[in-house]
């Protein structure tokens, strides 16, 4: 058992960024790196320096199917005998990685943020108030799901690996989930992913009136309004403005987070140059992720902002 198996992720024929982050993580570990890609996507992009082999597996289904994905990963593990399997801690990853580890009695940890040889991993504990270090004694192979954004993505292509169709494939009879269709997000109004300055509002916004007032502040400071999930669920704002794992990923120069606690699922969608956080709770995790923070009432601070932008 040696080396790393990276399970790439694709959706609708395109590789997702997290695949290249997993390659970045794999490069920090010992042993050969091999990549598994299930389904139809540009496999050559996964051939980055340091990768020994890219195995492509034809899927009998056009879209992600968790049982076929799990079976392909199990077959790849049997063939390649890796010490570590890296899969994304993504919404697809949630549906198959733990199943593979459970069925094969492997080591397993999810949402890991750092990996060392051994392996030994770091992940959050107690709602990320603490961090835990995990080891996997007696496990020849360990499956790890890696938090998106925890590792830098490597540039696609440029490697000297073999890119080969695998001589195994999951049998279609294992498929148990039938894809009925995608519903596209409605991109109405401003596109939050294109904004330079995002005013992100969270659970700390108590009511719709306050939300409307803060929209006025956003307009005055030329910011685009985004929100964390609780405000979308409360109906204050449309899902197209939701930042986070199941929302959108924003890449503004400045992300001004008001009343956002900083749950991992939210921070997964924040790739900002500078994060400024205002929250009444001094222990809010957002202050660990932010560059600047203030423990203050978000309304009192927000009301004082527009005068500086006239």
């Amino acid at each position: 058992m040696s080396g790393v198996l990276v399970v790439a992720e694709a959706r609708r024929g395109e590789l997702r960024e997290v695949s290249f982050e997993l390659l970045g993580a794999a490069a920090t570990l010992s042993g050969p790196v091999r990549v598994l890609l299930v389904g139809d996507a540009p496999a050559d992009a996964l051939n980055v320096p340091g990768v020994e082999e890219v195995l492509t597996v034809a899927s009998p289904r056009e879209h992600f199917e968790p049982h076929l994905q799990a079976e392909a990963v199990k077959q790849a593990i049997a063939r390649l005998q890796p010490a570590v399997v890296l899969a994304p801690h993504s919404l697809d990853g949630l549906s198959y990685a733990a199943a593979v580890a459970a069925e094969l009695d492997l080591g397993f940890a999810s949402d890991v943020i750092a990996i060392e040889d051994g392996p030994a991993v770091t992940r959050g504990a107690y709602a990320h108030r603490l961090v835990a270090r995990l080891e996997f004694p007696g496990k020849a192979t360990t499956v790890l799901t890696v938090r998106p954004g925890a590792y830098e993505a490597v540039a696609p292509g440029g490697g000297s690996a073999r890119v080969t169709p695998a001589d195994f494939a999951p049998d279609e009879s294992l498929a148990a989930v039938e894809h009925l269709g995608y519903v596209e997000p409605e991109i109405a109004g401003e596109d939050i992913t294109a904004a330079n300055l995002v005013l992100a509002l969270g659970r700390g916004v108590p009511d719709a009136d306050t939300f409307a007032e803060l929209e006025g502040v956003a307009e005055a400071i030329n910011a685009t309004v985004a929100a964390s999930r609780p405000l979308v669920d409360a109906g204050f704002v449309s899902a197209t403005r939701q930042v986070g794992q199941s929302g959108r990923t924003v890449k503004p120069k400045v992300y001004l987070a008001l009343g956002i606690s900083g749950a991992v699922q939210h921070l997964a969608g924040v790739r900002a140059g500078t994060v400024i956080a205002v929250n009444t709770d001094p222990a809010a995790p957002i202050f660990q992720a932010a560059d600047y923070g203030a423990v203050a009432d978000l309304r009192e601070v927000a009301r004082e902002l527009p005068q500086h932008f006239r």
Partner: protein
Amino acid sequence: MKVLVTVKQVATLDDRLDVERAEWDLNSWDAHAAEAALELGDEVVAVTVGGEQAREALLTVLAMGADRAVHITHDGPLDPLATARLLAPVVQREAPDLVLCGAHSADALNGATGVALAALAGLPRMAAVKAIEVADGAATVVREVEGGLVERLRVKLPALFTVQANINEPRYATLRGIRKAASKPLEVIAAEDIRPGAHVVATTVPPKGEGAEMLTGSAGEVAARIATIIKSKVAG
């Protein structure tokens, strides 16, 4: 339809970050799973794994309206695979039409136990769904994937789904429900030895100092600093 819901009593730390002095509550995602189970099922069985305090999670779900509960007693830490191995025999014995789990537990945030349980119990599964409709022996579910994209899927029952918090608004237990809960069947099973999928070798307070530079002063002073930072970082 018989629905089995897995629940967990989760620990919340206050600013002392002392695990011994944690507050324990029903995992909020599991409350959503229980609500979905009560809406969909005409027989609802709640199952938990844990020490004495985990019984409270079952009593909460019984008070919400579940018919009976199973407490697999186990003291000490559990990883998701170990928990799934303890739950699987109960799921197989109960043979429900549908198994629902919270997508995550609020303390460990593994997002893994339900899917591992499905694999061990031989059930089809899909993680993190936000809507479930059942008709003609199959479930039509909706899940959100990255980027706001929504996928609709169909899965024949029996199956297991883990549910997101936006699937519903959990009901509160009524006083009558709480009184009735105490007399509902609550089976206790002692956990067998289990094989963990990981060992926690250390749990530590994350290093400080990498956090934010704190802006202090009045709201007006904080706003002025924020405005200066914004202007310096956002050209034009």
